[in-house]
């Protein structure tokens, strides 16, 4: 699996009509990508930070098929016209990633959340391995996480050279704003990688946290999810 994600922030002055026009045009261009799987383009819900206005995400069976699709003449034109328009785009955070570690089963509808991290504080191999293992263990303790994926990026652009993509799906937003945020595994354990006061500090304080409502599985579904289930 090869996946590409963008957090898109439009210029504030853009009218509601222009925003809707942008969304429809990007949605049509995305749906036309050859071989695209589980395309997502949704407005972000309030409460994120560095989230932008829209979450755009696409998946492909593998990297070659992704490269072919994203190099297609139609997509190149659409990307230049829509995402390359500086009069329209305020900010873009972009990542591509392949074969992340994932688990759980996506709900048929609910809330999708993505965080982009830049692990740039003494990122030794040992520390990165431990950070990843502890992050992947979050769903064992925080039961509101229905599906999840942690991936290292192979491409990144935007405010930081993003190194990690951490995605989850929930039945509803309380699973994220309640259980995920308030569980002690989060604030008393995993957060030491993010807190400049802890000796373990690893992740740049500038990160992206965005979520949106979805009406179809995003991270994993059906048999491909069941193959990677690691919940206990």
């Amino acid at each position, binding site marked *: 699996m090869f996946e590409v994600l963008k957090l898109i922030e439009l210029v504030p002055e853009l009218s509601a009509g222009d925003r809707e026009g942008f969304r429809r045009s990007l949605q049509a261009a995305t749906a036309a990508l050859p071989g695209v799987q589980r395309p997502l383009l949704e407005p972000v819900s309030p409460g994120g930070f560095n989230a932008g206005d829209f979450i755009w995400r696409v998946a492909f069976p593998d990297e070659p098929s992704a490269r072919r699709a994203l190099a297609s003449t139609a997509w190149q034109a659409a990307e230049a016209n829509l995402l390359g328009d500086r009069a329209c785009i305020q900010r873009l955070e972009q990542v591509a990633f392949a074969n992340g570690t994932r688990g759980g089963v996506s709900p048929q509808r609910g809330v999708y959340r993505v965080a982009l991290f830049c692990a740039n504080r003494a990122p030794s191999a040992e520390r990165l391995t431990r950070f990843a293992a502890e992050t992947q263990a979050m769903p064992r*303790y925080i039961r509101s996480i229905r599906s999840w994926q942690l991936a290292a990026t192979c491409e990144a652009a935007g405010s930081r050279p993003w190194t990690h993509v951490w995605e989850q799906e929930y039945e509803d937003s309380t699973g994220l704003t309640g259980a995920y945020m308030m569980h002690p595994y989060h604030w008393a354990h995993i957060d030491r990688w993010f807190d400049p006061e802890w000796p373990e500090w690893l992740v740049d304080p500038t990160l992206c946290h965005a979520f949106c409502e979805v009406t179809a599985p995003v991270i994993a579904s059906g048999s491909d999810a069941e193959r990677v289930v690691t919940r206990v």
Partner: protein
Amino acid sequence: MSSETASLPATIIPAMDGSALYVVDDVTVKPGAGEAFLDAYMARYVPGAQARGLRLVSRLVSPPVWLQDQSNRLLFVWAAAGAGDVWASKFAGRTDPLLAAWWASEAAPYIESRSRSVFSDAAHIGALGDV
């Protein structure tokens, strides 16, 4: 006021309630640096941490003598009323360059090793995870 002569600095509020969470700085200082580090911590770190909503409830020194050619170990125990207060203190400090500079530049010359941990009473573990 020197920490040597202070019986109970006004910045320390005794624990007397049901505070559920304790953030503990466990610092082993370089030989002979114990008292100087305590003074620096109290003067340069404590006011900011209090402004971020934490309460200093104890500062423990082992062994209870300022060693000159060996290392003291100091435990600073901070109390927070709950997870919301822990997050609030974290978010208040996360983007403060002075706080990062305290640990990286001001405190580092005194410190041989340190850790930070968050504790609760064992009786509260079930409730804390039931979210």
